[in-house]
């Protein structure tokens, strides 16, 4: 009798845990279906190519296109990765190969705290502290040096206002450093010490060991970390919302104000008074969801493969 009851309770517990575990699948699929359903009117009206290649964003004429927001998202993400990845790798190398053991923990924790600071704090700090420094000192300095070069100089044209792609990318790059750094650190640590020691034994310097043994051995893990950071950068909202200006135009210089998908959503979602307006915003959200989900999934695959190695 008692055993019977134990069995029933066990089944009930099993059922409850199974349902909660499957809720993750339900939520993921649910998000996709709901976003798709909400964006259907916009999909029907503008199509796919007609939406992503159009510059128009006119609530009065009810014409909507995603090009400026998508380009803004891609530029900020790309530029922040370009800045963050080398630095994050440097930090990981410093922690695993150079730092004395008492510093390892401290620096590792400090870098991870960068990830704990909420994005709204980054945004506020960016608006009130970093943007003025950018517009008064750093951006004019860049204009008078790199800005004078042919071709690249074009990227640094315009009035340096501080509220632009450049500031937003710098802030984003600081925010995503910890994601690449901590995964790169873990992958570096997985390099068998026999491999490293054999390189030292034939007279390699420390840097040569890092460059020719550790980095090639852990490249899958590092790529996974970079993908994860890219996924984060694509979806970052509040930090960028403060310093990008939400200007619907295709930027020609890094010192232009712009918009990203997330900034558009954050600023306009509650103002969307017409169905097609809201539906277009959902269409943007759907595109963002698909982009970040795909990139995160690829990154996760790399990490799983690296783990199995």
């Amino acid at each position, binding site marked *: 009798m008692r055993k019977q009851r134990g069995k029933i309770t066990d089944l009930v*517990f099993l059922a409850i845990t199974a349902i909660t*575990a499957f809720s993750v699948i339900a939520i993921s699929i649910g998000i996709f279906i709901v976003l798709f359903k909400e964006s259907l009117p916009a999909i029907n009206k503008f199509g796919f190519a007609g939406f992503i290649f159009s510059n128009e964003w006119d609530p009065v004429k009810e014409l909507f296109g995603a090009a400026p927001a998508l380009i803004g998202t891609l530029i900020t993400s790309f530029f922040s990765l370009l800045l963050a990845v080398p630095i994050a790798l440097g930090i990981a190398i410093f922690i695993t190969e150079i730092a004395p053991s008492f510093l390892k923990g401290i620096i590792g924790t400090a870098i991870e705290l960068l990830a704990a600071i909420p*994005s709204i704090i980054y945004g506020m700090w960016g*608006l009130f502290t970093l943007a003025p420094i950018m517009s008064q000192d750093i951006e004019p300095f860049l204009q008078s040096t790199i800005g004078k070069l042919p071709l690249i100089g074009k990227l640094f044209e315009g009035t340096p206002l501080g509220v632009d792609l450049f500031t937003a990318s710098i802030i984003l790059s600081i925010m995503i450093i910890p994601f690449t750094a901590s995964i790169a650190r873990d992958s570096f640590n997985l390099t068998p010490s026999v491999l490293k020691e054999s390189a030292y034994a034939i007279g390699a310097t420390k840097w040569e060991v890092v460059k020719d043994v550790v980095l090639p051995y852990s490249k899958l893990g590092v790529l996974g970390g970079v993908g994860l950071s890219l996924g984060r950068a694509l979806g970052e909202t509040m930090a960028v919302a403060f310093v990008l200006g939400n200007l619907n135009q295709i930027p020609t210089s890094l010192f232009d104000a712009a918009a990203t998908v997330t900034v558009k959503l954050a600023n306009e*979602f509650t103002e969307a008074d017409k169905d097609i307006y809201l539906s277009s915003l959902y269409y943007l959200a759907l595109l963002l*969801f698909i982009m970040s989900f795909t990139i995160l999934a690829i990154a996760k695959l790399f990490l799983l493969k690296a783990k199995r190695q």
Partner: protein
Amino acid sequence: MILKKRKIVSSIALFICFLTACWGIFWLTFIIIDVLRHGITAINPELFLKDPAPPGEAGGGLRNAFIGHLLITVFATLIGVPVGVLGGTFLAEYGRKYNISKVISTLADIMVSVPAIIIGAFIYAIIVKPLGHFSGWAGAVALGIIMIPTVLRTTENMLSLIPWTLREAAFALGAPYYKVIIQVVYRGAATGILTGIILAIARVTGEAAPLLFTAFNNNYFSLDMSQPIASLTVTIFQYAMGPYEEWHAQAWGAALMITVFILLATITGRLLIKRRYKD
């Protein structure tokens, strides 16, 4: 000669790595000091005890936002933690042999990093739109959903660290599986699970994007979760983007409180886990 050159190259490269670490630490200290410097002048009893004054007028505080934020976070925790812990239990215990469990844990890893604003848009469509108005409940559900994958993954990891022999010992005494889990496995993994919960709470406390179009905002004091309710993060966004000096100061005060809370919670979580799993 060549050897000397290689040694110099090595030293330079390693020095650059050292500089990158300084770069990271520099921004961390810069941000924390800046938030402290601006925030500390805005901290006074009024900030916690009074509701907002009309725009542009001096005085007033953010009592409504502090209480609203607390309510939303508490209810989000009540949604996210049970679902996350139980789901993680399935993955590490009953379902550990099935492929679907691996799929769920991979999916959860992806969902941890999915943009929070997407969750906000999702909740807007399934809760706010049908009800016709913003509500505290919608905000709590949004944050709860963000918590689930984090808590689920830590629970799964922590439970898998408990050695199988321990479970087998309990099985040998004739205990059914659920009793083994609750009385043996959970007890062994309690610190780890608690850490996961603390870190998840720390993460959602700083979220603003999913609250923008779920809980929205409210300039008045309210305990009614079925109505729009103020939160610190949304208030920071509104005040910092607003035109008044008063607002900016209060936004810095709120930013300081949130930063201090989150950094303390994160560090506590890390220390807890370090003490429990020294290796």
